[in-house]
């Protein structure tokens, strides 16, 4: 049993649920890479959204200023989060809503189950929600005998296909039309057996299936894109209108929202409504934005709940360098431009949050020391495309490097036997921290030429370096380094400066 010191604040709890890798990223990635269908679907989809986004972003002369404004608002929210949460709770409650606080996935699931039970309903309809994915709500409800129906088209495809979302905006991005038709034919009750892969026909099939759900469901569960502290208002931004049906038709509405989604005032929403649709779907404005503030007598759900979810967010907030990952508005722009995501797809990241943001958010929320997620910060070539695309300017490459540093340090602390990588880095530290050392090492260059042989190429190296030579040659090294050439041949009147501190 661990001791509790009275008067010491507890460390923030790490998150649980669908945030953890079950196998190291490189292994999962290598497997997904072999899926040609997935790769061509992904390539097509991400490149299409990429181009659309660039076009609509270029229309705004003040895009950079908007990004700065978004980033500044989020920073102020993080600095003032406890007060904003309390303000939100007071206003939401005053308008007839009920607020519940959940520390982790298990608490959130238990609260929601209780709320559904209290209505006596056996079925709930759902608006697409990252937070409920994160806590594994559907699976939990199923074990409790409650059926949850996803109403977002892509989310429905994933659910009917007994699959997991692989993209936060386009959860079924890894499926093509024909695959969708096959899923509908096999799994959708009452579907037209002559269904083709025509998009209009597919949408029609989903529409008639969902319509019956909307009209009979008494309970809806939603996520929220924003919560406005000053008025206690919640907002859902969507494209299909299914969200609006869920938010207005049922008697009971339960919303699950991460604590970081707050905005101080209504006016702040303006900035994000310009940033979000352009960054996510490449549209100037999304088709449906629903806002609700507590209960309106005789109109819409009369029983309105909000579950405020921590699940590792305060742990992320406690990381000074990593905290800005919580600025994320889940637009998915970073994954659409990421060369790694493009080739592996979302499943390789193991978490509800894939792509560049997932590579930092999941370890921040679960703790890099926990080992499950410590391969995620390395799932990037640090090309920087994500940072360029992010509408709230999260410096993802910098946070990746920060988390790599934490990972290396935490393994150091555990005194594990040094890995090949550790030894390589130690050796390189010796070589790279002195010109004399590097110069000595370079005296060995002719040996490399010997290894390269007649072809002047090195085609196979042992150990860790084999990971390189598996698919790339190394040219034969030169007979002498530049340093040597300079010392011997360069015009002597150009003085070589004497540097102090050489070992």
């Amino acid at each position, binding site marked *: 049993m661990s001791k509790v010191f009275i008067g010491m604040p507890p460390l923030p709890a790490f998150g649980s649920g669908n945030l953890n890798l079950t196998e190291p990223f490189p292994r999962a990635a290598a497997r997904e890479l072999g899926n040609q269908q997935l790769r061509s679907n992904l390539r097509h989809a991400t490149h299409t959204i990429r181009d659309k986004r660039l076009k609509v972003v270029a229309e705004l002369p003040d895009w950079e200023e908007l990004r700065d404004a978004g980033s500044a608002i989020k920073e102020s929210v993080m600095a003032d989060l406890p007060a904003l949460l309390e303000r939100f709770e007071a206003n939401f409650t005053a308008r007839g809503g009920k607020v519940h606080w959940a520390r982790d996935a298990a608490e959130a699931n238990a609260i929601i189950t209780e709320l559904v039970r209290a209505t006596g309903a056996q079925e709930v309809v759902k608006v697409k929600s990252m937070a409920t994915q994160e806590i594994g709500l559907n699976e939990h409800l199923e074990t409790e005998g409650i059926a949850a129906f996803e109403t977002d088209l892509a989310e429905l495809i994933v659910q009917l296909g007994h699959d997991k979302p692989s993209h936060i905006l386009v959860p079924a991005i890894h499926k093509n039309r024909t695959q969708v038709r096959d899923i509908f034919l096999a799994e959708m009750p009452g579907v037209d057996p002559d269904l083709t892969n025509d998009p209009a026909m597919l949408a029609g099939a989903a529409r008639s299936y969902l319509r019956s759900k909307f009209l009979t469901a008494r309970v809806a569960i939603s996520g929220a894109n924003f919560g406005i502290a000053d008025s206690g208002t919640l907002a859902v931004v969507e494209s299909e209108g299914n969200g609006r049906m869920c938010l207005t038709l049922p008697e009971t509405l339960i919303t699950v929202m991460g604590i970081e989604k707050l905005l101080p005032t209504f006016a702040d929403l303006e900035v994000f409504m310009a940033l979000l649709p352009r960054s996510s779907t490449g549209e100037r404005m999304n088709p449906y934005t629903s806002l609700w503030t507590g209960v309106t007598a005789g109109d819409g759900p009369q029983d309105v709940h909000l579950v405020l979810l921590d699940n590792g967010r305060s742990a992320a907030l406690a990381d000074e360098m990593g905290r800005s990952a919580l600025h994320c508005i889940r637009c998915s722009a970073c994954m659409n431009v990421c060369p790694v995501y493009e080739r592996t797809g979302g499943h390789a990241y193991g978490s509800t949050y894939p792509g560049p943001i997932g590579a930092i958010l999941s370890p921040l929320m679960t703790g890099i020391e926990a080992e499950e997620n410590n391969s995620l910060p390395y799932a990037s*070539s640090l*090309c*920087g*495309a994500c*940072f360029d695309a992010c509408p709230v300017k999260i410096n993802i490459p910098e946070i990746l490097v920060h988390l790599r540093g934490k990972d290396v340090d935490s393994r150091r602390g555990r005194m594990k036997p040094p890995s090949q990588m550790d030894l390589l880095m130690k050796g390189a530290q010796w070589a790279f921290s002195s010109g004399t050392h590097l110069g000595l090492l370079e005296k060995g260059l002719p040996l490399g030429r010997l290894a390269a042989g007649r072809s002047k190429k090195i085609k196979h190296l042992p150990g860790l370096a084999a990971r*390189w030579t598996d*698919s790339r040659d190394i040219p034969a090294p030169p007979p002498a380094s530049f340093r040597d050439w300079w010392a011997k041949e360069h015009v002597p009147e150009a003085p070589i400066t004497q540097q102090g*501190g050489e070992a």
Partner: protein
Amino acid sequence: MRIALFATCIVDAMYPQTAQATVRILERLGHEIIFPAGQACCGQMHINSGYLDEAKPVVENHARAFGADDYDVAVAPSGSCVASVKHQHPMIARRYGDAGLEERTTAIGARTYELSQLLTDVLGITDAAAQLGSHYPHQVTYHSSCHGMRLLKLEDRQLDLLRSVGGIEVTELPEADQCCGFGGTFALKNAEVSSAMLADKVRNIESTGAGLCAGGDASCLLHIGGGLSRSGSPATTLHLARILASTMQDPAPAPESLRSGARA
């Protein structure tokens, strides 16, 4: 001007001709080049791999080697190394609470330039053929390299210089802004993904029909060149500095495909 050359570890050990070309270009313009002998590496491999404790002595070494006031500006033929000197060195100093080192690294960063940046912004080179005598009568394509493009915001500096070389034909590379998949130890840690990225880069280079891919970052060129070579492609890579240094009298090597007669 007195210009300190930071050759970078890869260029120093693997591509000395790129550093020699850098020296030649700048000397041709009448500048005096010095080579601070204590230099070794910028440390980005350590930093980007999370080995920050190991990176610290490397950063300190660079600050010692380039800390003297005996030069006006420093130059490196590599965008990623310059980005590391400018952004990562002060970050490491801050991390270890070393205010003195932070001040020194910030000052060094402020006067360190990537080659095309120095040529364009400081030395006013807009026409390589006229101002440098650059001549390279071959078809080339060009890969922009992520760190130069995104961290240093080099924009079209390298490409514009390349286009102004005498006799050259520059063919646009499809998806030029896409990462080649090198990423330092990323190529080892996530070798399969890195190779898949490289395969696309190789395919795009081949589609241009150019026998040569030019670029400003030796590490990316090592990676891309290794991929081209492994796939049996006639195309190779060559650093921008060598093309700029190439003249009628002293030409840089022609693309392999031309030399071997593989292409007419």
